[in-house]
């Protein structure tokens, strides 16, 4: 090729420099987001992982008439301040379940008071110097140790950090989301099918479309006001119940499901519709036999993402009373319930220091669930991705 002159040479070098700079900028933007994610996760994990361990203490428990009535008396006075009151409180239940215990002294590992754990983890505990010395001594003697915190997963909320867990919040979340999906999924899919497959482009349809887009942008807190006014005050749905929260979130999730379902339906090429019509399928048959099954992965993906968003939502639930203290897991959708983010929010405002790490641990669980949901959506999308 003929040699281009010098100026052109310079110019092209400059253009390539700009090209590299621009690309670097784009890569930088992505890296920034990724970096934030890494920073964020490291930070939360660092704050929260210690909550998965808790202190246990080995004590001799004496089961007598007296100790059943006054449980703290059941353990030695030296270790008494270090035993969780939440555990001592269960003493009468132990005897009830196993009457044979009466009159015996049993050596067992029991849950220690939260400050002991805090001290062992090197955090501020509020223990006196004297108590710290005792704990140190007991630890040397192998009578105090850090062990896996099973309470965190098997118990509901508690005022005692060592007894507090996420179970009732998890159950509440599941119930709430079940209601949300049971309501939002069918209505959302039906709306989308109507708009995409049945509706002609008239004023009513456009009005609905504008409406749906609008709803997707309405601040979630306003949905809370809606839930409070319509479901609780007007329809008499019990406050704080998974039903009230679920219905509120359902209305909030509805536009997301409609919008993603429409996209999934649109991705099915018209040639499929024409094929179906061409062999004499009715519209309903065309939709239910061909278009819906084909778009199902897309619909599910969208719904999972909607679900994940609903799951992280707190503000509207604040207003329908789901920021409640729920030690026992709800058993039905009308029972009082709380959800994970609300639990995190309430723990974050507890005065006891041990709740700091519980808050972070709660967040970790929440994130784990969200990541699982997201991963499911991604896998679903990958697995069923179809190039027409």
């Amino acid at each position, binding site marked *: 090729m003929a040699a281009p002159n010098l100026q052109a040479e310079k110019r092209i070098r400059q253009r390539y420099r700009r090209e590299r700079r621009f690309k670097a900028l784009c890569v930088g933007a992505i890296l920034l987001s990724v970096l934030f994610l890494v920073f964020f996760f490291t930070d939360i994990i660092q704050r929260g992982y210690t909550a998965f361990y808790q202190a246990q203490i080995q004590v001799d428990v004496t089961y007598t008439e007296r100790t059943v009535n006054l449980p703290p008396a059941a353990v030695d006075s030296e270790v008494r301040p270090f035993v969780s009151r939440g555990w001592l409180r269960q003493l009468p239940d132990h005897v009830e379940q196993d009457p044979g215990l009466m009159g015996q002294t049993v050596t067992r590992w029991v849950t220690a008071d939260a400050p002991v754990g805090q001290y062992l983890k090197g955090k501020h505990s509020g223990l006196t110097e004297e108590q710290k010395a005792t704990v140190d001594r007991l630890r040397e003697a192998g009578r105090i140790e850090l062990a896996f915190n099973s309470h965190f997963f098997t118990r509901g909320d508690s005022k005692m950090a060592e007894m507090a867990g996420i179970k009732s919040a998890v159950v509440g979340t599941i119930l709430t989301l079940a209601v949300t999906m049971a309501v939002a999924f069918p209505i959302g899919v039906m709306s989308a099918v109507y708009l995409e497959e049945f509706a002609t*482009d008239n004023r009513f349809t456009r009005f609905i479309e504008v409406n749906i887009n609008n709803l997707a942008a309405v601040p979630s807190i306003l949905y809370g006001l809606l839930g409070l006014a319509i479901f609780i005050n007007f329809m008499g749905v019990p406050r704080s119940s998974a039903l009230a929260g679920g219905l509120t979130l359902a209305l909030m999730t509805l536009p997301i499901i409609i919008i993603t379902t429409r996209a999934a339906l649109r991705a099915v090429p018209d040639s*499929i519709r024409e094929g179906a*019509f*061409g062999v*004499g399928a009715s519209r309903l048959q065309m939709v239910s036999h*061909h278009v819906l099954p084909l778009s199902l992965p897309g619909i599910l993906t969208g719904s999972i993402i909607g679900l994940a968003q609903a799951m992280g939502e707190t503000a509207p639930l604040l207003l329908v009373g789901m920021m409640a203290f729920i030690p026992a897991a709800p058993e039905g959708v009308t029972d009082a319930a709380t959800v994970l983010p609300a639990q995190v929010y309430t723990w974050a405002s507890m005065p006891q220091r041990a709740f700091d790490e519980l808050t972070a641990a709660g967040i970790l669980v929440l994130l784990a669930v969200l990541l699982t949901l997201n991963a499911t959506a991604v896998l679903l999308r990958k697995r069923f991705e179809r190039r027409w």
Partner: protein
Amino acid sequence: MPQPNDNPGNSGGVAARSSLGGAELREGSDTVEGEDHRPQPAAAPGVTRAPEIAAGHDAEEPTHPTKVDVRGLNLWYGETQALFDVSLRIPEKDVTALIGPSGCGKSTFLRCINRMNDLIPSVAIQGQLLLDETDVYGPDVDVVQLRSRVGMVFQKPNPFPKSIYENIAYAPRIHGLAKKGAEMDELVETSLRKAGLWKEVSDRLSMPGTALSGGQQQRLCIARAIAVNPDVILMDEPASALDPVATATIEELIDELRSNYTIIIVTHNMQQAARVARYTAFFHLGEVIEYDDTDTIFTNPRQKRTEDYITGRFG
């Protein structure tokens, strides 16, 4: 390769259609003379402007009675008119080709016959389109039933993303033409045989239809259309997305089907029209310019525009 006379015909156990179009009419139907395959003159209701081609021209050998009788059809997409006063009589049990430059309204016209244009909201139609003397756009017509009588094959093969078996069995099932099990199996086999695909796929009926090659897919779509035993099959450039070999197969297949079905085929490829069709209509800018025996159209067109198009002066 399909053998031109290896025609399993209606021998299978397909539930025979009860009342529609007489299959026996083929022989001894020389009743209507000369006018049969010519465009309808101005007399038809709703027609205001007679096509220039209305003046008589004797075709050599009128054969079949009219299957589709179009009278003064006008069609608009919103504001723009796409078909102008189209009048045509399409005879039964033979192949009629529609040719013309891109955008002249061939597909639009074809899709009028099975009312596929109903799916486009902006379409407005005026005029008459009779199938076996019943107006397709009449108030009592059930589109779904109409489409089961008028099959359609599209430009791009569009098998359903289901198994080959399901592709064929789908329509008979929704129309209740065969019972699950042996009866349906037989219907599937017959249809695939008629479409000349049986040999190639008989051992893998559960494979997805989309995994076939383009030509096979197109034949699958033809088999799918045949399975409901329609009277008419519309084909919109069925071979334009295929390679030459597959195209040849499809053309052979059309040749086999001509004795049992009324076939209307749109094609861009004039050689193809010449090869497969007995009659050819030339469309231009939404009008039927000329409609006659294929031979006449290609060797001795009466209209200048037809000749210009045929000789590649435009298009």
